């Protein structure tokens, strides 16, 4: 019993953490490079979910090969991410460079409000369940654990995203440029790095990741209005706990929240509502810049 519970806490924690990571990593990447805390990330998540749900629904109506629906999820994420990313970066954020961080946050908040209603105008108010892919992969039994393989696939996806991200950042020229910008934007600009392009590319990647979060979640929920709202604060928490702009930090933050929430659900269900914010507040109190974040000392 105890063993089972502990095993489940770990399993559930890791699964939830993977989901959180996929949802939050884009946000932290965008912040790290552009210093923009993108509230509209939640809208990208919602758009990804809606698009995926719609495409998957049509796919199964036409009775195509079920496994193809997984490809569809990725396609949805790519399409939404690239289209919305271009619109938002070129159409809005570009004009906000150099403005107060907080003002930019508000601008993305406004964007979020707008997109909330845009989504309703496009998809109406009807909920869109697209549950087929979720049960396609069957389940796995490990000792006492009975897990859905789709959830395990989420873990794989999270590891993939994290791995590719790590590889791209540390092993490729583009990644090194990105790190340079993250480390010191002025210096990077001085070194002749085309910061604008770096920004655009970063934001596109971030948007795709946000949409991917939604698309990969669509099959396990019934996509309906307002699902972006809660995701925003969750992603905030993850990003802040890990250290704003730090990708390993996002991984760590996701793990911390995932495990503590799972523990709360299993051992102290009453605390579920607190768990996340309690962790966030405590971490900020103990490590003001997040677990992997650090203060920048101004040169005088």
């Amino acid at each position, binding site marked *: 019993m105890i063993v089972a519970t502990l095993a489940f806490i770990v399993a559930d924690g890791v699964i939830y953490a993977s989901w959180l990571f996929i949802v939050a990593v884009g946000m932290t990447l965008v912040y790290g490079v552009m210093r923009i805390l993108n509230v509209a990330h939640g809208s990208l998540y919602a758009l990804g979910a809606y698009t995926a749900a719609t495409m998957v629904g049509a796919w199964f109506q036409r009775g195509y090969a079920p496994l193809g629906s997984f490809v569809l999820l990725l396609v949805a994420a790519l399409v939404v991410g690239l289209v919305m990313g271009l619109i938002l970066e070129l159409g809005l954020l570009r004009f906000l460079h150099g403005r107060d961080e907080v003002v930019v946050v508000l601008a993305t*908040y406004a964007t979020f*409000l707008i997109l909330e209603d845009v989504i309703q105008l496009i998809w109406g108010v009807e909920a869109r369940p697209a549950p087929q892919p979720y049960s396609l992969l069957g389940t796995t039994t490990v000792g006492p654990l009975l897990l859905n393989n789709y959830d395990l696939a989420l873990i794989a996806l999270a590891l993939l995203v994290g791995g590719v991200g790590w590889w791209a950042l540390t092993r490729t020229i583009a990644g090194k440029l990105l790190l340079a910008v993250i480390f010191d934007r002025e210096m990077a600009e001085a070194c002749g790095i085309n910061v604008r392009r770096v920004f655009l590319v970063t934001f596109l990647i971030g948007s795709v990741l946000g949409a991917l979060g939604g698309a990969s979640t669509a099959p396990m929920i019934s996509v309906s209005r307002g699902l972006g709202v809660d995701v925003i604060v969750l992603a905030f928490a993850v990003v802040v706990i890990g250290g704003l702009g730090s990708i390993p930090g996002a991984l760590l933050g996701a793990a911390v929240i995932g495990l503590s929430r799972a523990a709360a659900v299993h051992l102290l269900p009453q605390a579920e509502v607190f768990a996340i914010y*309690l962790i966030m507040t405590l971490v900020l109190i103990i490590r003001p810049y997040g677990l992997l974040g650090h203060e920048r000392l101004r040169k005088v």
Partner: protein
Amino acid sequence: MAARDRTGAALAGAFVVFVAAGFFLPSWAVSLVILSLARGIVALGLVVQFRSGLVSFGQALFFAIGGYAVGLAGLKLRLTDMIVLTVIGVAAATLLGAGLGFLMRRYREIFFAMLSLGFSMLFYGLLVKTETLGSTDGFNVPAPTIFGARLSALATRTLLYDLTVAAAAGAALGVHWYLGTILGRLDTALRDNEVRVEYLGYAPGRVIHVQYVLGAALAGGAGALTAMAVGHIDPSMAYWTTSGELVFVTILSGTGSVLAPFLGSLVFGLLQTYALQYAPSVWQMILGVALLAIILYLPGGLWSALERNRARA
């Protein structure tokens, strides 16, 4: 100084006009003005923080503290006097603010925003868990009295309205004075160059602490007034979207003057009301567009627009 006297005169003028208006405005408008002015009082506190580059994404915490202080005082202590209740709201929020301030003063930029958000959401969770206070449904606040007298609904509402107008004017005057002092002027200094403040022998954290407590007190009073005007309080008062709305109003208003937040808040209230009436299903979009337009074309908020007109004239 001369500038102060003028704002004082302007405030006095506004005070008279609003009080007079209170006698012929329909009750929905009265209630709208009360809520807007109250929101403006909170925004006033945010303006002060904003001048030093800090934004609290958790100001709803103190707003809700003020509201629940009123609710509990009415529920448990049978207190109903609107002035006493307002004072209680302010006191409760000030105490909490003074305490949390010792932490908040160490934080800047987005981390300040996030920690304040964390505190407000913790309080939200606490309220949701408190079934004896109606959890998410909240509970009704008894109609307020004045000097122990229970008056007609109309009279009560008018008095509450006047109290709110007075509170708003008082807050504006006080903050205007504060911004004229060394401490008050340090807000911009802090935003410009914290290192220099430090090297002038003053603790930047102290400035932030003072601002934070000030903001808390204002939000607490506003929460108390709101609770009495609405006659009902629930945890959504502390939810992050409420904080978002408050910051929204601050940006909309601009920091050009202590009068700006009230103007901005009133505009916001009307915008929302009429958006709801004519586009009930896309009112969020309308608000969003308005905010974006302000950010892109009026970096100084509504107030700067009015000033620009003056400059042209």
